[in-house]
């Protein structure tokens, strides 16, 4: 029995579970992992990468729309939040999604200050998640390189 692999697998499992427990991820991430198989081993990483690119782009455009207090394009901001909420929801990025919910509320009442706070929070949350998932993917790579398989993790 290869104990290095077993150790790495255990580490991976514990880390993934902790991400759910700390609220970074929700059930939709599990759904996402179901879509990955031997034929598409990079699916989750690709989708997640697309998501983070989207986050970066949308945060930039929303930031510009919110820049001048006398001329805020709330329609633009709303469109950005809508997209971000959709993709974070599809990926299982729970914290990001939750900020988007508050963000939408601020947008609906045209609260610029509130929007700016949410924008900052969304930026923080997506970057935080990006680091966490990068660590997770690195663990996956180490397992594969050691000749092991990525464990199926059941989140109750």
């Amino acid at each position, binding site marked *: 029995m290869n104990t290095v692999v077993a150790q790495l697998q255990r580490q991976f499992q514990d880390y993934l579970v902790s991400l759910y427990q700390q609220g970074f991820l929700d059930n*939709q991430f599990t*759904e996402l992992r*179901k*879509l990955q*198989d031997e034929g*598409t081993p990079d*699916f989750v990483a*690709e*989708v997640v990468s*697309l*998501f983070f690119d*989207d986050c970066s782009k949308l945060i930039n455009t929303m930031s510009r729309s919110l820049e001048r207090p006398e001329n805020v394009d709330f329609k633009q901001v709303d469109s950005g939040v*809508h*997209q971000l*909420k*959709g*993709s974070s*929801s*599809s990926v299982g990025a729970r914290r990001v999604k939750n900020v988007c919910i508050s963000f939408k509320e601020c947008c609906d009442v045209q609260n610029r200050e509130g929007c700016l706070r949410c924008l900052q929070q969304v930026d923080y949350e997506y970057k935080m998640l990006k680091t966490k998932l990068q660590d997770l993917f690195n663990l996956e790579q180490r397992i594969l390189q050691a000749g092991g398989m990525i464990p199926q993790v059941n989140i109750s």
Partner: protein
Amino acid sequence: MGMITESKFHVLAVDDSLFDRKMIERLLQKSSCQVTTVDSGSKALEFLGLRESNDPNAVETHQEVEINLIITDYCMPGMTGYDLLKKVKESSAFKSIPVVIMSSENVPARISRCLEEGAEEFFLKPVKLADVTKLKPHMMKTKLKKEGEKPSEEENATLKPVIEILPLHQELESEQHESSTLSSNKRKAMEEVISTGRSRPKYNDITTSV
């Protein structure tokens, strides 16, 4: 000796978001469907071979590729999923193709309108694998029709609607006994959809089962 290969169902997926296209494509592939994705309603019509009705040279051509199902996002710039649905259902060549609408927003009036216009299902995003497996019966119908057979009795048993039309005063408790495979999103949609007594008799007697 000839090889009998079962052809896969071919789905046309329409969504203006690259991210969502990637997701739906994978979901469908995982369910053993062949997928073509396009980013707009007009491209979908082009793919089908149906030109825009305001084209003076408009001719409904034969379907160039056999499509067993169209799944489309509702909110798209230009032609919405609803507009696309209407165009498909108004076309004599393509109205038999089942259409499914997806949306990230749970708007009961929107859901009713789509179902009334002939959409087979309305999925709330994020779409899951369990949702996609519900598409098989709808796609089977088109294959059976083409082969000139009547749908079997089995088909009715497996046909489970996503939206069950409930009276407004339906007790919430009774819903707890229903299928746990329904996501809470869809359950919410079920609670809010207003019963309008529309003429879709095939759903009236079917209840979702556990």
